[in-house]
């Protein structure tokens, strides 16, 4: 198992390298630069030349990329072109914890709501509880974030005034760099974004758990356990649950990917100062290093999440062995 993990991490490095190269090339290929002399930002030509030389933008592309890589292995993700006080590392340390908090809470909400709901729906199959749960699952799985967010805002923030409309309730500096101070204001602000991001996951997890548990409950070994006289709860919790969660673990990789993707959308709607919002707002300003760095971080998160999911999969199902 340890060999497998080491191998996966080693393979991930060239993958990330290729990703950075592709992103860097793509961003640099966009016409226009951060110090444009045409358009609205009329900077005099000679000043623009000086600025480009300062950031190395007048060099050929491969040389820019080599310098970028050289800085990257030392942990420096490059400068910001619109700000002299901050560089990319500062922006990342401010925005990454916010996005992490949002994403983790959303995935947690999805599992914490989805798995119990799926279990209850499976145990009370074809009753009103089952129909309600399935209906809401299909509904929330289909409503896009872009529509769910304004609706929830209108109901809970504007009409009922229970939650604030925008912004994240915790600002840097964070505890240990990533944990927020658990004040009530934090949860107040976090409620709507996390719900919007997590409901889609909860819906999918509900359907999968329900289907998985229904499959498992009709298996022979469950009949044996019941015939032995075990209490129903023991049968379900000890024998059925672990196996019925396997489809859920299978989907946790795409679930993390959806949380990463969805956080871009939710951050934009709720004006949360996370990585996604900085990504979109720095497009127009052609922040090459920031954009490449953020894409790199997103890719690393995805690769890491997939690795964790594969390990979890092997733990849950002893028949799976990676050699």
């Amino acid at each position, binding site marked *: 198992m340890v060999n497998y993990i080491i191998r996966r991490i080693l393979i991930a490095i060239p993958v990330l390298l290729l990703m950075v190269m592709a992103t860097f090339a*793509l961003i640099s290929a966009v016409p226009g630069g951060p110090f444009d002399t045409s358009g609205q930002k009329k900077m005099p030509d000679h000043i623009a030349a000086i600025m480009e030389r300062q950031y190395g933008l007048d060099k050929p592309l491969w040389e820019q990329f080599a310098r970028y890589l050289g800085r990257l292995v030392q942990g420096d993700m490059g400068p910001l072109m619109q700000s002299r006080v901050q560089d990319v590392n500062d922006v990342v340390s401010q925005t990454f914890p916010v996005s992490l908090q949002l994403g983790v809470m959303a995935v947690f909400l999805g599992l914490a709501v989805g798995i119990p709901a799926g279990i209850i729906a499976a145990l009370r199959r074809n009753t009103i509880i089952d129909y309600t749960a399935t209906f809401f699952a299909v509904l929330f799985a289909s409503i*896009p974030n872009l529509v769910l967010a304004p609706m929830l805002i209108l109901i809970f923030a504007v009409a009922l005034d229970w939650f604030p409309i925008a912004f994240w309730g915790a600002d840097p500096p964070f505890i240990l760099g990533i944990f927020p101070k658990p004040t009530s204001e934090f949860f107040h602000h976090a409620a709507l974004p996390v719900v919007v991001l997590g409901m889609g996951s909860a819906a999918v997890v509900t359907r999968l758990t329900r289907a998985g548990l229904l499959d498992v409950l009709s298996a022979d070994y469950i009949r044996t356990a019941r015939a032995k006289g075990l209490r129903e709860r023991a049968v379900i919790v000890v024998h059925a649950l672990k196996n019925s969660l396997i489809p859920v673990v299978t989907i946790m990789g795409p679930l993390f990917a959806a949380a*990463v993707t969805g956080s871009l959308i939710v951050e*934009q709607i709720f004006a949360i100062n996370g990585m996604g919002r900085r990504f979109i707002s720095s497009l127009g300003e052609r922040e090459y290093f920031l954009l490449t760095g953020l*894409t790199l971080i997103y890719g690393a998160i995805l690769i890491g999440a997939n690795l964790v999911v594969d390990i979890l999969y092997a733990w849950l199902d002893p028949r799976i062995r990676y050699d």
Partner: protein
Amino acid sequence: MVAELTVDEAQENTRESRSPSQDAIREFRRNKVAVAGAIFIVALVVAAFIAPLITPYSHETQNVSNNRARPMEGYVITTDFAAQNCHWYGTPLEWGCTISFVGSDTLGRDLWSRVVYGTRVSLAVAVVAATVSLTIGTTYGIISGYAGGRVDNFMMRIVDFLYALPTLPIIILMTFYFQQVGRRGEEAGAAANFLININQAMGGLFFIFIVIGALFWLGMARLARGQVLTYKQQEFVQAAEAMGASDNRILFRHLLPNIIGPLLIAESLAIPGYIFLEAFLSFIGLGVQPPRPSWGAMINEGYQGLRSAPWLVLVPGIALMLTTLAFNFMGDGLRDAFDVRLRGR
């Protein structure tokens, strides 16, 4: 003594045979929700085609004095109102009282008209992106699956690498690139200019479709490859090989018709994702160019006034939601209908 049937009686007693797709269609029709979704989608397609006939305005007619009108404002048709607002526009179906059924936006454009014209964009995205990703993915998958061995290994390595890419940031970057190239066309070469002109003609849709299709074929490829691997060992393929059929013929005459079913269903389940992606890209300003309406752009414009004029966001939002729901229900229904294990439940 055993009763014997004559040939005629035996023929009368047999039912006529049904093909699997007829069984599936029967099963589909029993699923009321899926049928409702399918009907809604057909209605959307019809509305997209006959949009000028069912909307009182064009999608860009501005009536700034009537901006931010509430839904159904002024719907009480008194004689004064009729004298003021009801006209004959000269063409057979553009008549009547020009009221805003569902309100108007900040520039006075009628929301109903914009929503109906917006269905064109969303359906275009759905169809084109699905076709592109289905074509690329299926071709890639069946070639990889049929070739097997090292070619298969290599092709799947590429798919695994592309799977690790974070899709939304890359899509945003590519759309941004195409948008900027489209705006500064004078710097590009002749071929690029040609593509840019096509893009402009379609209101900026062309490049977005390419981008979406270019990044979503991976799931299709894996699915196609899995299907081909299953079917490759079956006797009819081996028989075709033994008879000397060329690889091409085996791939496209024998394998493809068998595997296309699950692929089409998987693609129709991915369509809501394409529609939503286009809406989000329009929401952040990277989608179709104004004044061509897109539901995402409408949500973006209306978002500023969410407190005071919520219908600006709700109207396109509900349209988006209903479309997504309809495709999801129909796709689920199709998948369940073709799944043999669920028959007779």
